[in-house]
C-alpha cells in the first residue's frame, strides 16, 4: 500500500530516499503535551547530506528520532508520513521498523559514552547489527566484518580493541565505535544527532572527516543534526533551519550562508562571534527565547523575537516555500519566477531539492550581505590595561591518580605543569586549549579552590600562600569564579535572593536591608527583574541563570572574575547576550577577567590577551590579534586550522593543516615538549628538552617552542 506514494517525486528528479511529509510529533507527559514537531517536511536524495540546525529545543532531535520510531516514552507521531524507500515508517509495525533500524538506516547519538552498553565488548556491540540483520552470517564472520569496520573508522589496533569495553576508550574512539556500529550494515542513510558536540574541536574535526569519507565511499545519504553552524557549513549539501518545531528555512548550504532569507537564520548568523565586525564590538543578539511548544502559537513562531514582525506575522503563519512574488527583489541570480513550480524549476538546479525555501513574510532582501548591512554599535572601549593584578609563577598542580577500587595509587596527573603568566588590571585574559589541558584547574587555583602543588600565585603583589586565615578570608572577596554550568553552581533549594546574598552573609557585609539593596542593584545590572529574588534557579532559562551567576560573582565587588567556560553551554543567540553583558559590566566596573574557553572565536572576540594551553603547559601567550594573526606555536596554528568556520567558502579552501592524533594522557605527559607527539615540526630535541620561552615576534608575544613558526599567516579566519 505504501508503494502508491512512490511516484510523488517528479520524473526528472531521482526519487528521494527519505521523504518526511507534514510530520507532527507530540510528546505527552502527565502534566502537558509538547507539540515537538508541527508539520515538518523534508526530502533527502540518495547520497545527499542534509544538515538540520537550530537553537536548543526546536525539535532537531525529535526529527531524527522519529525517522526510526525511537521517540521517547510518551512521544508519538500524530500526523504525516515518513517515507523511506517507499515504506511509511511512521505507520510501520514493530518488526518492519526493527528491520530498517541498523540495517538500512544507521544512527549515531551525541554522547558516545552513554550510548554504548558499558558491559559489552566493543566487538560484540559492533557485530550485533550484523547478527540481527544478515541472515545466515555466523558469529565468526560477523566479528571479522566488525573488525574490518573498526579499521575503516580509523580505530588503531582494531583486533585488540574488539575485546575492549567502552570505558577503556577515549571519547573520540568511542564515537568511532558508535559510527562503526551504525555503518556495519552499510545503510543507505545515516542519521547523526550531534555526533561531535561532546568532543574537542580536533577530535570533532577528525570524526567529521571520517563521516565525510565514509559517506562518500559508501554512497550514503546523511542527516546531520547539530546546533553548530560551523559544522554545518563544512559538512553538508543542504541545510534545514528549524525553529520551534518547524522548518524555517531550507536551502543549499552555500546559498544559505551567503544569502539567508529567513529573519531567524539571519539573526543566528549575526550572533556568531566570528561574524562580529571586529574584536571588542558588541554582538548581535536575538532577544528572548524560543516559545514553549505546549501550545501551538498563532502566526509566525519567530514573530515575538523578530524585529521585522508585523501584524501579519502575528496572525498568519507563513508557509514554507520558495521565493514569494511580492518579496522578490529583481536581479537576484536565483530568480525563480513567482509562479514557479517545483518541476519547472528543476532543470535550473544541479542538486535535487536545492531550491531555497523559507517561511517568512518579510525575508531578508536578496543581494544583501548581512554583515555589510549591520549597524555596528560603537565598540565598547576597553579600559586601558593597568598594573599587574595577577601573577602566576611556575604554577604546578598534580592530582593523585587513583584508579578504580582495585588499583593502587598509580602516580599523578599533571594537570598544570608549570605555568607562568601575568594578568593586568582591567584586561581580559583569554585562556584556550583542548579539553583536559588544565584550563579549569588553573582557574580553580587562581580562585583559591585548589591549592597548587608548586609555584606561587601573586595577587596584587601579595603571595597568596603567605596569607593568614583571616587575610585569606578577606582575600576571597577579591577573586570570584563564574561557573560554566550555572545550574550546578546554584543551590537548587535556595531562592535567588538568598543565593545572591550568600556571599554577603558569609563575609558579614552589611545588614539584611543593605544586602537586599545591593542584590537588587545587581539584578538591574545584569538585566533581570528585581522580582527574581523570590524565585528558584530552575525557574530561569540557561541564559538568565548565567546572568545570575555573573551577578553573584559580582556581589562582593571583586577585582578579578575567573569565568570558566561561561557560555559554552548556551546557544549562540544567548551566548551573544552574555558576552555583551560581560563586556558591558567590565567597562562599567573596571573588572579584570580571566576568561576560560575552548572556543577560539569567543576568546578572540572578548580577550585582550590570549593564552594557549596544551596538556598543562602554556604554549603561547600574547595580544589576541597577534596570536590569531601570527600564531607562533604549531599547536596554536593547528587549532586555528581545525576550527569549523561557519562559512562554506572558507571550508572549501584547502590550505588548512588541522591537528591530527589524540591528546596524550596527562598522567604520562610526553617528555620534553608535550606537544611533540602531534607536532608536524617535531625533531629529536623536542623529546629531550623542554622548550624555552621565547619572544620572536616582539615582547608580549611569548611562545614555548623549539621551532616557532616564522612566517606569520596573513589572517586568521576565526
Amino acid at each position, binding site marked *: 500500500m505504501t508503494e502508491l506514494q512512490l511516484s510523488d517525486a517528479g520524473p526528472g528528479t531521482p526519487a528521494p530516499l527519505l521523504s518526511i511529509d507534514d510530520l507532527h510529533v507530540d510528546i505527552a507527559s*502527565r*502534566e502537558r503535551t509538547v507539540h515537538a514537531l508541527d508539520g515538518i517536511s523534508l526530502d533527502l536524495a540518495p547520497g545527499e547530506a542534509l544538515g538540520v540546525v537550530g537553537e536548543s529545543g526546536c525539535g532537531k532531535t525529535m526529527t531524527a528520532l522519529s525517522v526510526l520510531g525511537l521517540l521517547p516514552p510518551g512521544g508519538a507521531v500524530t500526523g504525516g508520513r515518513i517515507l523511506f524507500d517507499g515504506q511509511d515508517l511512521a505507520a510501520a509495525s514493530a518488526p518492519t521498523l526493527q528491520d530498517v533500524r541498523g540495517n538500512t538506516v544507521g544512527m549515531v547519538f551525541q554522547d558516545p559514552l552513554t550510548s554504548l552498553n558499558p558491559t559489552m565488548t566493543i566487538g560484540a556491540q559492533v557485530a550485533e547489527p550484523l547478527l540481527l540483520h544478515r541472515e545466515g552470517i555466523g558469529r565468526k564472520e560477523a566479528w571479522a566484518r566488525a573488525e574490518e569496520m573498526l579499521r575503516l573508522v580509523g580505530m588503531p589496533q582494531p583486533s585488540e580493541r574488539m575485546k575492549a569495553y567502552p570505558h577503556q576508550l577515549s571519547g573520540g574512539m568511542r564515537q568511532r565505535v558508535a559510527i562503526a556500529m551504525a555503518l556495519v550494515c552499510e545503510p543507505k542513510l545515516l542519521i547523526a544527532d550531534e555526533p561531535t558536540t561532546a568532543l574537542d574541536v580536533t577530535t570533532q574535526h577528525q570524526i567529521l572527516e571520517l563521516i565525510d569519507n565514509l559517506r562518500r565511499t559508501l554512497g550514503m545519504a546523511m542527516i546531520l543534526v547539530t546546533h553548530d553552524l560551523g559544522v554545518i557549513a563544512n559538512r553538508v549539501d543542504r541545510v534545514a533551519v528549524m525553529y520551534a518545531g518547524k522548518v524555517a528555512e531550507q536551502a543549499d548550504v552555500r546559498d544559505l550562508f551567503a544569502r539567508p532569507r529567513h529573519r531567524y537564520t*539571519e*539573526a543566528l548568523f*549575526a550572533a556568531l562571534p566570528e561574524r562580529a565586525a571586529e574584536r571588542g564590538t*558588541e*554582538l*548581535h*543578539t*536575538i*532577544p*528572548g*527565547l524560543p*516559545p*514553549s511548544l*505546549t501550545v501551538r502559537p498563532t502566526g509566525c513562531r519567530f514573530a515575538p523575537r523578530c*524585529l521585522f514582525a508585523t501584524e501579519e506575522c502575528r496572525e498568519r503563519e507563513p508557509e514554507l516555500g520558495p521565493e514569494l512574488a511580492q518579496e522578490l527583489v529583481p536581479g537576484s541570480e536565483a530568480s525563480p519566477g513567482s509562479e514557479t513550480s517545483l518541476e519547472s524549476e528543476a532543470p535550473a538546479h544541479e542538486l535535487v531539492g536545492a531550491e531555497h525555501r523559507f517561511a517568512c513574510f518579510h525575508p531578508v*532582501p536578496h543581494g*544583501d550581505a*548581512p554583515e555589510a*548591512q*549591520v*549597524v555596528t*554599535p560603537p565598540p565598547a572601549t576597553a579600559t586601558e590595561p593597568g598594573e599587574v593584578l595577577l601573577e602566576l609563577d611556575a604554577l604546578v598542580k598534580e592530582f593523585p591518580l587513583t584508579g578504580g577500587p582495585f588499583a593502587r595509587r598509580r602516580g599523578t596527573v599533571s594537570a598544570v605543569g608549570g605555568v607562568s603568566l601575568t594578568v593586568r588590571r582591567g584586561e581580559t585574559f583569554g585562556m584556550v586549549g583542548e579539553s583536559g589541558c588544565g584550563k579549569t584547574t588553573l582557574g580553580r587555583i587562581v*580562585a583559591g*579552590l585548589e591549592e597548587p602543588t608548586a609555584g606561587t600565585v601573586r595577587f596584587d603583589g601579595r603571595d597568596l600562600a603567605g596569607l593568614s586565615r583571616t587575610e585569606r*578570608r578577606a582575600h*576571597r*572577596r577579591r577573586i*570570584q*569564579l563564574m*561557573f560554566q*554550568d550555572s545550574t*550546578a*553552581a*546554584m*543551590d537548587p*533549594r*535556595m531562592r535567588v535572593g538568598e543565593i545572591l546574598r*550568600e*556571599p554577603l552573609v*558569609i*563575609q558579614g557585609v552589611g545588614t539584611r536591608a543593605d544586602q537586599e539593596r545591593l542584590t537588587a542593584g545587581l539584578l538591574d545590572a545584569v*538585566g*533581570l*527583574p528585581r522580582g527574581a529574588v523570590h*524565585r*528558584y534557579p*530552575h*525557574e530561569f*532559562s540557561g*541564559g*538568565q541563570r548565567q*546572568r545570575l551567576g555573573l551577578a*553573584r560573582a559580582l556581589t*562582593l565587588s571583586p577585582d578579578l572574575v575567573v569565568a570558566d567556560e561561561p557560555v559554552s553551554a548556551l546557544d549562540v543567540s544567548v551566548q*551573544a*547576550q552574555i558576552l*555583551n*553583558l560581560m563586556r558591558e559590566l567590565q567597562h562599567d566596573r573596571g573588572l579584570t577577567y580571566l576568561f576560560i574557553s575552548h572556543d577560539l572565536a569567543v576568546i578572540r572576540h572578548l580577550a585582550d590577551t590570549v593564552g594557549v594551553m596544551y596538556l598543562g603547559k602554556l604554549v603561547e601567550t600574547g595580544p589576541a590579534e597577534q596570536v590569531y594573526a601570527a600564531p607562533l606555536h604549531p599547536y596554536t596554528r593547528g587549532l586555528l586550522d581545525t576550527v569549523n568556520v561557519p562559512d562554506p567558502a572558507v571550508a572549501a579552501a584547502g590550505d588548512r593543516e588541522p591537528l591530527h592524533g589524540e591528546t596524550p594522557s596527562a598522567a604520562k605527559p610526553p617528555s620534553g615538549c608535550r606537544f611533540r607527539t602531534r607536532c608536524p615540526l617535531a625533531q629529536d630535541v623536542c623529546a629531550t628538552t623542554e622548550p624555552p620561552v621565547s619572544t620572536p615576534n616582539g615582547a608580549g608575544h611569548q611562545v614555548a617552542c623549539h621551532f616557532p613558526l616564522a612566517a606569520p599567516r596573513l589572517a586568521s579566519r576565526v
Partner: protein
Amino acid sequence: MTSAASTTAPVTAPGHEEAAQATPSLARRTLQVFTGNKLALTGVVLLVLLLLFSYLGPLLYDTEQTHTDLSQANLSPGTDGHLLGTTDLGYDMVGRLMVAGQTSLEIGLAAGLLATLFGTVYGAVSGYFGGWVDAAMMRITDAALAIPAMFLLVVVAAIITPTKGVLILIIAAVAWLSPARLVRGEALSLRNREYVQAMRMMGGGGARAVFKHIVPNAIGTVIVNCTFQIADAILYVSYLAFLGLSIPPPSADWGSMLSAGITYTQNGYWWLIFPPGIAIVLVVAAFNFIGDGLRDAFEVRLRK
C-alpha cells in the same frame, strides 16, 4: 530599515513566563506524581484510617484498658458485645488495638524521626568533611552494620528494661545507620557540587555547607528514607516484642499483642493474632507505599 537586531538596551529577558511554566514547582510536581501513584494514595488512605482508628477510636468506643478482668478472658468475637473478643486478660480486643496502635505509631514515628535526624547529620558531616573524618565515621557505621540488627536487639533485649523511651532509643540506635550511609553518599557527591564550591570560595565554612546546602539538598532522600525508617521502626517494635521486649503492661503495642497472641496460636484464638498482625503489616506497608510514592516524586534512586 534592514538592520539586524539592535541590542544596546539591556535585555529584559522575556522568557520568564515560559521558563517558569516549563518547570512547575517541585512541591507541585511532587503532589502530582504522588496523587497519580495509586499505591501511594492507598498508603495515605490506609495511614489516615489507622490513625483515626487509633486516636479517634477510643473516643467513640470506650473500653476498660487498665484493669484486667480475668472473668472475661479469652472471649471469642461477638461474645458479650466484644466485637473482636477479649484478650487473655479480659481486655476488649478492639479497644486494645486502638490503644496499642497509638503506642506503635508513636514509637515508630519517634524512632524513625530520631534515627533519620541523627543519621542525616552524621552522614552529612562524614560525607562533607571526607578524608580521615569520613573514614573513621564510616568504620563505625560499618562495624555497627556488620552486627545484624536482630543480633543487637537480642543482646539488648537481654539487658534492658523496656519503656517507651528506651524502645525508641534502641530502635533509633539500630536504624540510624541506613540514613547515615545514604546521606553520606549524597554528601560525598553534593560536596563537589559547584554551588558548594562556590560557597567555599566566598569563604563559607563547614557548618554552613552541611546545614545550608548538603542537608537541604539531600532532603528528598532524607524524607523518603524517613518514611521507610518509620515503617522499619514499627517492624522493629514487633520484633522486640517477639524477643520479649515490649513496653510494660497495661500499655501495649501491636507487636506485643501479636507476640502475646502467638501464645494462643494452637488454641485457635485467631482474634488475638490476626488483628494485630494485620495492623502491623498494613501500617508498615502504608508507610512503604508512601515512601515509594515520594521516591518517585523526588526521583531518588532506589539504591541505598
